[in-house]
């Protein structure tokens, strides 16, 4: 226990103080906290390296966490915000189905229910209770987006044509996957019997268990090194310090209340736009995001369960407050996320939700829009949105089936001091898939992958450009499921910045061009060219205030054309130089 190696400071006397059992000295707090963060990172590394799911590998679509005996989230890996945001309530949610007192060492709880987890079935939550001498001292957990959980289409994220969650695959309320260290083969068989790729799902479940096991082992080592009482008091201190830091960040925002609205194109071909509305209220260290004024829940697989809304609400509040800090139950205490039951943002089971990921960008953007007046130095033009097309079928050239998962990201909106960054993942934080890797995997040839000139919203600081990707099919037939947005409602600018160009999806077949909708599913034929042209991001500030040298640079670099400069900035251009400013 508390020996010399622990690097704790022996000389500081504990003192009782508000809500704490004892005050932990800053050095022990710094070191134990750092060790906890190192554990959740190591858990994430274990999961990422051994996972099969591309969402885990390439997209960091997972998270890891450590909880105290009361189920409070103490430390969390900085991976997918959607999972991070769902974690704080995990133990509480499990306790609705499993008596915590009945758990024994070696038990492992598993569930993927949308209302308990992160809002769609592919995300499995795996939680391992941690014991010392038969006493529960905490939990170690890992979540991961699995490649498939059954249901109507491969990947279990179909939007169109799904009207109930029962069509989205296997729903697992909390069960014990391991009992006292023994795998429950029956439960596993139920899971694997309901998914399209049982080997991969099993591999990823075990990768999650390995990750939780790493967390448990290292958490026990900390208890052993510092002693139970000191560690538990440090947990209290971590939450108190986090909450107080978060409140400081929020106090730096002006008090007040603001609202904003924006829309998704639709919730599937032929359906109405989906209204996003938020009222943001900042009040002396507390912030509330209330989404109650938005759309009712819809009958396609795109609804945002409350956990998902809250996850991205938390992310948004932290990002706009520039609260770059480790997350735990303390950091989110000052953030309140509200959504009316039965609304699109707090859907009621069995509302389908497989494709809810597309909502994250708009959730952020309405809050950004609402806070723009209050936070001119943080607000930004709207993103170019993103696209997640999947193309699958049978490759007759190679005699095997293929599924091509893809991610397209364009630019950021303009900010108060700079143009939007080009070609970046908007909120979810993923890498793209290299063209050379993409073409290895199936009968698709990319004809172009480039930024579209003049697509970014004009402004004092220009919005990033929309990305264009043209794909030609080299086999007889394939099915393309499109998932994007911003075809009807352009990404908005702020403070006089212009909107970006809208999204277009153009299918060229035998020389004929067909405009497609953003959430449709289409059969492609040999030599069809599918051209995905993402919208451009919104600008920041009045275009008339843009520096001439920036316009000239943009022309030289081909981000805008001379014609675009005349149209959007009202300037005359000669030999690449601005000769007559607007006026």
């Amino acid at each position, binding site marked *: 226990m508390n020996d*010399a*190696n622990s*690097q704790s*400071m*022996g*000389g*500081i006397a504990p003192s009782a103080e508000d809500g704490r059992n004892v005050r932990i*000295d*800053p*050095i022990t707090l*710094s*070191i134990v*906290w*750092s*060790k906890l963060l*190192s554990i959740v990172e*190591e858990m994430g*590394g*274990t999961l990422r*390296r*051994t*996972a*099969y799911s*591309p969402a885990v*590998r390439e997209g960091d679509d997972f998270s890891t966490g450590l909880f105290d005996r009361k189920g409070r989230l103490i430390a969390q890996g900085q*991976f997918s*915000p959607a999972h991070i945001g769902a974690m704080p309530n995990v133990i509480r949610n499990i306790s609705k189905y499993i008596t915590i007192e009945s758990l024994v060492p070696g038990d492992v709880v598993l569930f993927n229910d949308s209302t308990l987890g992160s809002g769609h079935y592919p995300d499995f939550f795996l939680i391992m209770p941690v014991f010392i001498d038969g006493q529960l001292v905490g939990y170690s957990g890992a979540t991961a987006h699995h490649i498939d959980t059954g249901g109507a289409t491969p990947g279990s994220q179909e939007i169109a044509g799904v009207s109930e969650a029962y069509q989205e695959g296997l729903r697992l309320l909390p069960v014990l996957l391991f009992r006292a260290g023994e795998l429950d083969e029956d439960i596993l068989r139920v899971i694997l019997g309901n998914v399209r790729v049982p*080997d991969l799902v099993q*591999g990823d479940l075990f990768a999650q268990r390995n990750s939780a096991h790493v967390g448990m082992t290292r958490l026990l080592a900390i208890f052993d090194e510092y002693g139970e009482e000191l560690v538990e008091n440090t947990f209290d201190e971590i939450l108190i*310090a986090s909450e107080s830091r978060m409140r400081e960040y929020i106090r730096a925002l002006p008090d007040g209340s603001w609202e904003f609205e924006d829309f998704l194109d639709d919730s599937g071909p032929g359906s109405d736009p989906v209204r996003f509305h938020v009222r943001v209220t900042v009040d002396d260290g507390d912030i509330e995001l209330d989404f109650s004024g938005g759309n009712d829940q819809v009958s396609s697989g795109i609804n945002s369960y409350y956990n998902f809304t809250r996850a991205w609400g938390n*992310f948004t509040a*932290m*990002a706009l407050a520039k609260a*770059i800090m480790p997350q735990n139950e303390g950091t989110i205490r000052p953030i309140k996320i509200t959504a009316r039951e039965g609304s699109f943002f707090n859907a009621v089971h069995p509302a389908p939700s497989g494709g809810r990921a597309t909502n994250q960008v708009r959730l952020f953007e309405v809050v950004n829009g609402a806070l723009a007046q209050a936070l001119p130095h943080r607000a*930004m033009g709207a993103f170019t949105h993103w696209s997640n097309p999947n193309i699958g079928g049978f490759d007759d050239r190679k005699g095997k089936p293929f599924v091509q998962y893809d991610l397209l990201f364009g630019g*950021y909106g303009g*900010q108060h001091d*700079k143009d939007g*960054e*080009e*070609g*970046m993942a908007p909120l979810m*934080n*993923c*890498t*793209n898939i*290299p063209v*050379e*890797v993409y073409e*290895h995997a199936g009968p698709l*040839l990319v004809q*172009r*992958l*480039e*930024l579209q000139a003049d697509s970014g919203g004009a402004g004092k600081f220009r919005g990033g450009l929309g*990305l264009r990707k043209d794909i030609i099919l080299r086999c007889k037939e394939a099915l393309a499921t499109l998932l994007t947005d911003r075809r009807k409602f352009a990404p908005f600018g702020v403070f006089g910045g212009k909107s970006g160009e809208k999204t277009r999806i153009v299918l060229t077949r035998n020389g004929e061009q067909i405009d497609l909708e953003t959430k449709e599913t289409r059969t492609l034929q040999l030599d069809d060219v599918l051209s995905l042209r993402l919208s451009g991001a919104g600008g920041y500030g009045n275009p008339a205030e843009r520096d001439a040298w920036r316009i000239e640079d943009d022309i*030289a*670099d*081909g*981000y805008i054309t001379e014609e675009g400069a005349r149209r959007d900035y009202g300037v005359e251009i000669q030999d690449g130089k601005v000769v007559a400013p607007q006026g």
Partner: protein
Amino acid sequence: MIRLAFDIGGTFTDIVLHDSDSGALHVAKTLTTPSDLAQAVLHGLDDVLTQTGTEADEVGALLHATTVATNAILERRGAKTALLTTEGFRDVLIIARQKRYETYNLYFHKPEPLTRRRHIYEVTERIDADGDVVTPIDLQSLDSAIDRVMAEGIESAAIVFLHSYANADHERVAVRHLAERAPSLAVSASCDVSPRIREYERTSTTLANAFVKPIVARYLDTLQDALAQKGFSAPLHVMQSNGGLVTPEIARDYPVRIVESGPAAGVLLARHVGQLESTDHVLTFDMGGTTAKLGVVDDGEPAITSTFEVDTVDSRRYSGLPLSTPAIELLEIGSGGGSIASTDGHTIQVGPKSAGADPGPICYGSGGDLPTVTDANLLLGYLDPDYFNGGAMTLDIEAATAGLQRHIADPLGLSLEEAAWGIHAVANTDMERAMRVMSVEKGRDPRKYTLVAFGGAGPIHAARIARSLAIPRVIVPAAAGVGSAVGLLTAEARIDVTITRTMVLDDSAADGVAAAYTELEALVAKDAPRLGTEEPILSRYAYLRQAGQGFEINVNLPDGRIDGGYVDQVVEAFHTAYERDYGYRDEASGVEAVDWCLAATFPSATTGKLETKAVTQQASSRIEGTRDIYLPESGARAPCQILDRAILAANGPLTGPAIIEDPESTILALPGDRLSMSERGDVIIDINVEGSA
């Protein structure tokens, strides 16, 4: 034979002269001259020759590690560079991999690319993933791209076409045309520089090569001319990131390979020390002024990585520019002697901001006013204010006291000593965390490794970090302050060649593997005559993965004829390596190969051997004494013995706590540690063997 090794670092240029007849090692340091790097080298060489009474023509080998390529990238001071690429893919470089290096930070800046979009020119051509030509190269479009390159006053050009690792024909055509039409232009083609799958990484690497090519060529020209003028007749060798030396001619062609020149040489020193002290499993710990660099030696060989990033933000992945060239694996974190400590009112943070050498820690008295790790170490008594840098500097203890009080102790309600200890301990925890990443998280059991600590600040922290990871032994080598320069003396000439040939390793793979190695051997044969006359020693390795998983691991492959049985051996080597890294075998899913690699080493008389007997240094040695230091084990300040290496050698093993003062670094052993001096003059600390309180 007399050999001279010189390593240019950010602050100092280190020079080591080694005489293999006497075994004597002479060490010197001189301030780096950033505006003209060769100047410091020549100045330092002069000094060393004078001090040792050596004539320039007596020197048999000149070995060099340099930051010239790195600095050109960091400061964007390279050539005006164009990129020629496949039509439709102009933006591969601009788009990059699209991931934020901090998930919660939406106000980041992407790294500035090494060329602007206006200098990226498209050529009509297309090759597919199988290497088949989809669109033949259109010479008219190539010519018009070359016209623009010439009109724009471009100095250097990179050529990167899609899938050129699978079929380099189009890139070769472009190289030929550029050579004909613009003979003075420096040209780098991706099929030569980095023929590996993943277009962004290949583009970034090839462009970096092109960007630094002219500046590195000019630098080497200047250096070689100056050396010749001084009367040196020995051949010059330059260290690459992979830990191998090459001739200046090869370095001129592939300057991107020398980016991690100095740090790689540091790991070689650690390997060498391990060999002499009978261990081939070494964790290396090089803590300097701004960062700490960690490396690994497994089975006597430094761990090699296939890709690393340069110009990162706090070493975060995706924050810098990726370079796909083989490099000794290093994890660099923002914990150095100059790292600044701060508090948010609850906890203490150390780094990643650093006071560097200028203004430096408060105690340097040159304008720094924020407390650093060095200031904390001074207040804890670990450093002697009168004997810093061999007595060349005096440290201002009062100023450091005031700074720590104001910025850390007062805001947190700590005593001065607690604040100082807190900074030291937090820095240790950060380094422990990084060390875990290099060891435990990659399947290496720290209990089987020895920690070799060097750099100005490393030996103060090493014993405590070793404890926290249960590393049983720390070695602080002689001349620890000039580790990379000494490491150069142990290096051999070596080149690594790599090629992407993706395939599933099944019964039909043997021909493909054999073909890949035939190509790789041809690549080696091309450069071998420029490296030496003797036959190289070839060793094979590959980047393989579980079919369906996304991460390749580096697997060393056996020698021998490549047939069906060989493929089985490759698969088995993969499973063994995978099990080492991840703790389990998964033989059910197949194994997939991505990159095949061949290392060629050229043993020679001028490189690779180092036997030392005596080390002499510029500064004088230190006297014996005691000083009060703070250790949490004792709970208060207590006297600690201070000695130098000579006294340790004479007095035999002793028990910590103890401080050993070298001119360029200070070694701290803790209570319970046993200190001894090895025959070759390395300080050995056996951790916690005497049983601490």
